């Protein structure tokens, strides 16, 4: 592999990782605080992509207005779901929560069919990001460069909020001891609602940012949710930098693995997960669950 090819592949792996991180970080945040495994997260991703399509193609608004609209819409949808339904399931069996989020997948896929039909859509690149940058020895597409900037920015922002603010401390406390937090006068249900809203909005942003580089079709939620779970499990459930690291591992393994061993492209991410689970069952940066 020449230097040009290596750089290009490493860059593509990074761009894929960053797009995946944005989506997976939301899933991870929700699991970390609410202890709910949200199967509908992939659906939120798909809605994000479709909303960008509607806002940019049907209404003619700029791409980034579409991204904001996707984030806002998903936040509202998530808030309604949390307040009306999900809140009744906290502390219940995991099976109930799984069934609920799975039901959400079915409901939302029918809703998407009613709103957008079953046609295939595509979203154009935002202005100024549809070309490529020539670095002399390698040519890199602008949009993927942009993803490589946005991903770390979101990670940094999440880290600042969760690790450096009072609200973040409350969120972290909620993962530790919900009862104690409530006894101290914190409105825990509101913390839960906020976390679910933000986590879901991240899926919306991830979908919106993925929209220009993939075809929008019904069912695009299905693969993404599996990949998100792989990333979160590799990185360690509930750990922000863990999912960042997990996304990087996923991106590079998928990119280089598919180049070197194309026949293994289907199983590569699962193999990666398997290896991590054997060596560190709690994920790269996770902690063993204390029972």
């Amino acid at each position, binding site marked *: 592999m020449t230097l040009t090819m290596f750089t290009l*592949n490493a860059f593509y792996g990074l761009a894929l990782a960053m797009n995946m991180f944005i989506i997976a970080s939301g899933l991870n945040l929700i699991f970390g605080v609410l202890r709910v495994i949200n199967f509908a997260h992939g659906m939120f991703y798909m809605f994000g992509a479709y909303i960008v399509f509607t806002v940019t193609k049907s209404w003619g608004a700029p791409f980034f207005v579409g991204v904001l609209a996707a984030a806002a819409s998903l936040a509202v949808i998530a808030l309604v779901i949390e307040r009306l339904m999900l809140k009744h399931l906290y502390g219940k069996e995991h099976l109930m929560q799984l069934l609920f989020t799975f039901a959400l997948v079915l409901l939302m896929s029918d809703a998407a*069919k009613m709103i957008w039909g079953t046609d295939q859509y*595509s979203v154009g690149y935002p202005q100024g990001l549809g070309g490529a940058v020539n670095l002399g020895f390698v040519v890199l597409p602008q949009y993927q460069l942009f993803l490589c900037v946005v991903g770390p920015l979101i990670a940094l922002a999440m880290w600042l909020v969760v690790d450096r603010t009072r609200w973040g401390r409350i969120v972290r406390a909620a993962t530790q001891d919900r009862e104690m937090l409530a006894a101290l006068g914190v409105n825990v249900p509101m913390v839960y609602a906020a976390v679910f809203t933000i986590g879901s909005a991240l899926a919306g942003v991830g979908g919106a940012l993925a929209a220009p580089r*993939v*075809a929008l079709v019904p069912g695009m939620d299905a*693969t993404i949710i599996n990949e998100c779970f792989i990333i979160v499990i590799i990185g360690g459930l509930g750990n922000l930098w863990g999912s960042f690291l997990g996304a990087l591992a996923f991106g590079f393994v998928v*990119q280089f693995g*598919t180049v070197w061993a194309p026949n293994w492209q289907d199983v590569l991410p699962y193999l990666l997960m398997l290896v991590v689970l054997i060596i560190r069952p709690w994920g790269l940066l996770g902690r063993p669950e204390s029972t």
Partner: protein
Amino acid sequence: MKYSVMLAALGVLGAGTALAQQPPIKIGVLYPLTGGGAVYGVPAMTGHQLAVEELNAKGGMMGRKIESVERDDKLNPATASSTMKELITKDKVDIVLGGLASSVGLAMSEVSKQEKVVYISTIPKSIQITTDKLHKYVFRTAANTDQEGDTMAMLVGKNKLTKLCHLELDYAYGNDLEAGILKALPKYAPDAKVVLTLKPKLGATDFNPFIPQVMSAGCDGVISGLWGPHFVSWVKQAAPLGFFSKIKWISGGEIGSHEIAGELKGDYPDNVISNTYELWYTSNDPSHKEFQARLAKKLNTQETPQWAVLGYIGVMYAAAAIEKAQSTDPDKVSAALEGLSIGTPVGKLTIDAKSHQANIGQFWGPMVKKPDRAYRMMEPAEYIQPK
């Protein structure tokens, strides 16, 4: 016997009531209606329904109404096989149509063989359906991978391409199309060499591991079976690098359909030569105009999708065979289908008695910009039919 003749006579006398009393003829149909396949499954089903409506408006088949029992195959062979079994045993359908993915078509053919019920493959192209896995009850009214591969090889020769990169999706359709192309290549383009073969998985959305490899292989042409969303994702990821300015892209998988052109609009790349079963703006048969007008009315758009015609032709063939056999008995219907010719919106078709394959053709041509349109159109569109 006499009794049934009397009943038939009674039926003729009181046509209206008889129609209501006689049990309907049941056509079972599977297309993907949810998930990624719905993009094509839904318009195919629309064409299917259009045909059923038309036939019922004319009084059905053999004086019996047609009932269409419609199911979702989810683009999944296992789902298709269990759903088809249910259609046969529970709903007691007389004939089964449809499928979209080749893997689904092969699964449906297997059920048709076991249950001895006629199945017409209206979209699946895998050559195996009408060769290795051929049996008495399976027929195909779609094109097949040998035919598509033959035309693609011919286009390689015609465009004088010598260094080829070959892209196929890694499943039944992609692998069979690859074989079809390689078989025909020496005939049309003896100088052409395939220097790189890559096989992304079915349903892939990220083609970045493949794009740099093709770009550095120095091909003057790409032969591709990437259909629908795969092609769109490839274009979105490769175009910023100037991918399409340096190569000719010869593609099966109906990339030349209006669905793809209308969706990609200005993002549709240069140098693409591809195929489609039908074009709303081009006819090769006088009856096409009327068909297209009815479809446009049903879908409320002038720019109708090509997949509808395949669903439509399937029903028309089923009806013609049952009418000819004057029976829904699978053995008689199968015998009737062998060698049967009917008129369709894309011309007169004949099902070969031996291979059970209809001689349906496809429009092939370059996708060109039009000054007065937001999308590209195939021009000139040449209708290529197998001999």
